[in-house]
C-alpha cells in the first residue's frame, strides 16, 4: 500500500502556514504598513493553510469510508518501527470535525478586530495549535500523540495569556499547571505501556494486548488508569472540570470557538480509542465510570450555565454538560456493547462542535461591541465591572439574533436542527439498553439548556439597551477598547452546516454506524497498520 499524501497534508500544511506567518512578520516592523498589509496577510495565510488542511481531511474521510484505513509512514519507516499517521473512519470523522471548525474559526479571525489578533505571534500560535489538534486525531503512535497534544496545549495557553481579557493571564497560568499535571499522568502512562510492551505504536500494543487474552501484566492496568484520568482531565469532565470555564471564557473569541468545541473532544476521541482498541476487556469498567461522570457533568454544566452571569462562561459551562451526553453514550457502549450508543456519541460529538463554535462566535460578535469585550449578562451596580450586554443585539444586524436563536435550538435539541438528531440517538440507545433513569435525567437537562439559551436571547436581542450603559469620562474607569467590523460569515456558515446536518442527517448517521461496526473489531485497525508494514 502506498503512503497517503493527503493524510500528511492535514498535519503538515498548518505547520507550513505557521512558518510562513513567522517569516512574514519581520518584513515590516513598527510601521503603519504592519497594520495594513502584514497582519491581514498573516491571517489570510492562516485561513489558506487551514482551508487546504480541511480539503485534505475531506478527501481522507472519503477514502477511509470507501476503501478502508489510510496510513502514512513518516520518513518511510514502516510500522511498528517508525511513526505512522493512521486515519480509520473514527479518526477521519473527528478530523473533519476539527478541520471544519478550525478553518471557519480562522475565517472569523481573519476579519475580527480583537486587539490581540494583531500580535505577530498570534496567527502563528493559532496555526501550531491547529497542527497539534489535527495531529492528535490522526496519529497512530501514543508518544507522538503526547507531543501533538503538548503542542496544542502550549500554543493555546500562550494564546489565552495574551488575550484582550486581562483575566486571561491568570486563567492561562492556572490551566498550564493543571494541564501540566495531566501531561505528567499521560507521560507516566506512556512509560508504563512502553515498559510492559516495548512499543508505542497503537496497533502493535493492541496486538500484544489481544494476544494476552484478558490476562494483564502488572503495569498495564495502572497505565489504563493513568491514561483515562489524563484524558478526562484534558476534556474537562466533571471532577477535573474546574479549569475549563475560566480558561475558555477568557480566551480570544476565535480561539474560544476552537477550544470549547474541538479541543475538548481530543480526550473523548482518545477514550473511545482506548476502549475499542486497547482495553476492550476493561471497557465495561471504564464505561461505567464515564457514564456516571457524564451524568454528573450534564447536571453540573446545565445548572452552572443557568446561574452564571457571563455569556461566554455560560457557553463554556454548557460544554461541560454536552460532553456529559457524549460520555453517557460511550459509557452505554462500554457497559452493554450497544452499537447504537457509540454511534450516537460520535454523532453527538460531531454535531456539537458546529453548534458550540457558532454560538461562541455570535456571543463574540455581541460582546465585542461592549466595553472591554465583556459578556456580562445581568444588570449590576459594581463600577469596576463592565456594563451588561443587555440590548446590544437590537443595535446590530438582526441576522446575528436569528443565528443565536437557531444555534440555541440546536444546542437544546429542537427539530429541525442537528442537535435533535444527536439527542434522538442518545435517547434511542438509552431505550435500547433500558437505562430509563439516565434518559430521563438527560432529557430534563435538555429543557434546562433551552431555558438558558432563550433567556439570553430575550435579554440580549429583545430588550432595550440601558442608556447609561456607556461610561462617561471622568473618574469612571475607561472600559472602551476599539472594536468593530467583526465577521458574521463564519457563524452563518456554521449554522447552515447545523441546519443541513439536521435536515439531511443520513450520510453522517451512516458513516457513524459504519465506524462503530469497524471499531467493534480491533483487528480492523491492527491489520491495516500491520499490512502496511508488509
Amino acid at each position, binding site marked *: 500500500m502506498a503512503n497517503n499524501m493527503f493524510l500528511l497534508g492535514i498535519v503538515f500544511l498548518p505547520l507550513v502556514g505557521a512558518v510562513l506567518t513567522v517569516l512574514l512578520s519581520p518584513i515590516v516592523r513598527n510601521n503603519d504598513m504592519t497594520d495594513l498589509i502584514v497582519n491581514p496577510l498573516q491571517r489570510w495565510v492562516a485561513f489558506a493553510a487551514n482551508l487546504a488542511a480541511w480539503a485534505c481531511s475531506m478527501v481522507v474521510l472519503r477514502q477511509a469510508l470507501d476503501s478502508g484505513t489510510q496510513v502514512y509512514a513518516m520518513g518511510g519507516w514502516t510500522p511498528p518501527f517508525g511513526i505512522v499517521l493512521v486515519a480509520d473512519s473514527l479518526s477521519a470523522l473527528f478530523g473533519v470535525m476539527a478541520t471544519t471548525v478550525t478553518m471557519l474559526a480562522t475565517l472569523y479571525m481573519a476579519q475580527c478586530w480583537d486587539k490581540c489578533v494583531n500580535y505577530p505571534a498570534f496567527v502563528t500560535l493559532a496555526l501550531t495549535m491547529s497542527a497539534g489538534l489535527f495531529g492528535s486525531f490522526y496519529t497512530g503512535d501514543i508518544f507522538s500523540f*503526547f507531543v501533538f497534544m*503538548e503542542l496544542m496545549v*502550549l500554543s493555546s495557553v500562550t494564546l489565552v495569556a495574551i488575550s484582550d481579557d486581562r*483575566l486571561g493571564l491568570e*486563567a492561562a*497560568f492556572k490551566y498550564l*499547571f493543571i494541564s501540566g499535571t495531566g501531561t*505528567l499522568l499521560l507521560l507516566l502512562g506512556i512509560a508504563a505501556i512502553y515498559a510492559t510492551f516495548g512499543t508505542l505504536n497503537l496497533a502493535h500494543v493492541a496486538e500484544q494486548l489481544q494476544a494476552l487474552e484478558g490476562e494483564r501484566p502488572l503495569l498495564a492496568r495502572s497505565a489504563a488508569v493513568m491514561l483515562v484520568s489524563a484524558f478526562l482531565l484534558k476534556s474537562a469532565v466533571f471532577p477535573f472540570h474546574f479549569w475549563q470555564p*475560566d480558561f475558555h471564557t477568557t480566551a480570544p473569541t476565535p480561539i474560544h470557538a476552537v477550544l470549547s468545541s474541538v479541543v475538548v473532544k481530543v480526550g473523548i476521541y482518545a477514550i473511545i480509542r482506548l476502549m475499542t482498541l486497547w482495553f476492550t476487556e476493561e471497557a465495561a469498567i471504564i464505561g461505567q465510570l464515564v457514564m456516571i461522570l457524564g451524568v454528573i457533568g450534564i447536571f453540573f454544566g446545565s445548572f452552572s450555565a443557568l446561574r452564571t452571569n457571563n455569556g461566554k462562561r455560560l457557553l463554556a459551562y454548557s460544554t461541560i454538560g454536552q460532553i456529559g451526553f457524549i460520555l453517557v453514550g460511550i459509557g452505554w457502549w462500554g457497559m452493554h456493547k450497544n452499537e447504537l450508543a457509540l454511534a450516537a456519541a460520535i454523532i453527538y460529538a460531531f454535531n456539537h462542535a458546529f453548534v458550540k463554535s457558532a454560538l461562541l462566535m455570535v456571543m463574540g460578535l455581541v460582546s465585542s461591541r461592549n466595553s472591554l469585550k465583556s459578556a456580562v449578562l445581568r444588570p449590576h451596580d459594581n463600577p469596576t465591572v463592565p456594563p451588561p450586554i443587555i440590548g446590544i443585539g437590537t443595535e446590530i444586524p438582526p441576522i446575528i439574533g436569528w443565528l443565536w436563536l437557531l444555534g440555541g435550538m440546536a444546542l437544546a435539541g429542537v427539530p429541525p436542527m442537528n442537535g435533535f438528531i444527536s439527542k434522538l440517538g442518545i435517547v434511542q440507545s438509552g431505550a435500547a439498553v433500558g437505562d430509563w433513569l439516565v434518559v430521563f435525567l438527560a432529557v430534563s437537562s435538555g429543557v434546562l439548556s433551552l431555558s438558558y439559551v432563550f433567556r439570553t436571547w430575550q435579554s440580549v436581542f429583545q430588550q432595550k439597551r440601558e442608556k447609561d450603559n456607556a461610561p462617561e469620562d471622568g473618574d469612571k474607569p475607561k472600559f472602551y477598547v476599539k472594536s468593530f467590523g467583526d465577521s458574521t460569515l463564519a457563524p452563518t456558515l456554521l449554522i447552515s452546516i447545523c441546519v443541513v446536518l439536521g435536515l439531511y442527517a443520513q450520510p453522517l448517521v451512516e458513516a457513524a454506524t459504519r465506524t462503530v461496526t469497524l471499531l467493534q473489531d480491533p483487528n480492523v485497525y491492527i491489520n491495516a497498520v500491520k499490512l502496511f508494514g508488509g
Partner: protein
Amino acid sequence: MEDLAMAAAIGTLFGMGVFQMLRRDLVKAAMGFALLFNAVNLFILSTGAYRGASAPYTTNLADGKATSDPLVQALILTAIVVSFGSYALLLAMVNLVSRRFNRIDSDEVKELIN
C-alpha cells in the same frame, strides 16, 4: 543496585515535586513542576536503559550481548524539550503574574472569582 538507586531517585524526586507543587508560593510551585517532570523522565529512562550493560552498536547485537535500549533516551530527549518549553512558559507567566499582582502567593492571585 542500579535499579534500587534509580527507584529511590525517582521516588525522592516525585515526593519533592509533589510537595513543592502544592506550595502557595508560585515560584516554588513552578520548581515542583520541573522536579516532577524530571522524575517522570527518569522513570522513562528506567524502563529500558538498564536492560544491558553495553551500548547498542551493531557489533554488540551480532555478538548477542545484552544491550541497553536506545529508544527510551530518544523519548526522554523529546519529553525534556516539551517539559523545558512548558517550564519556561510557566516561569514567564509567573513573572507576569508577579508584576501585575505584586505578589506571588497563590491565595492572593484571585481576580477570576466572580
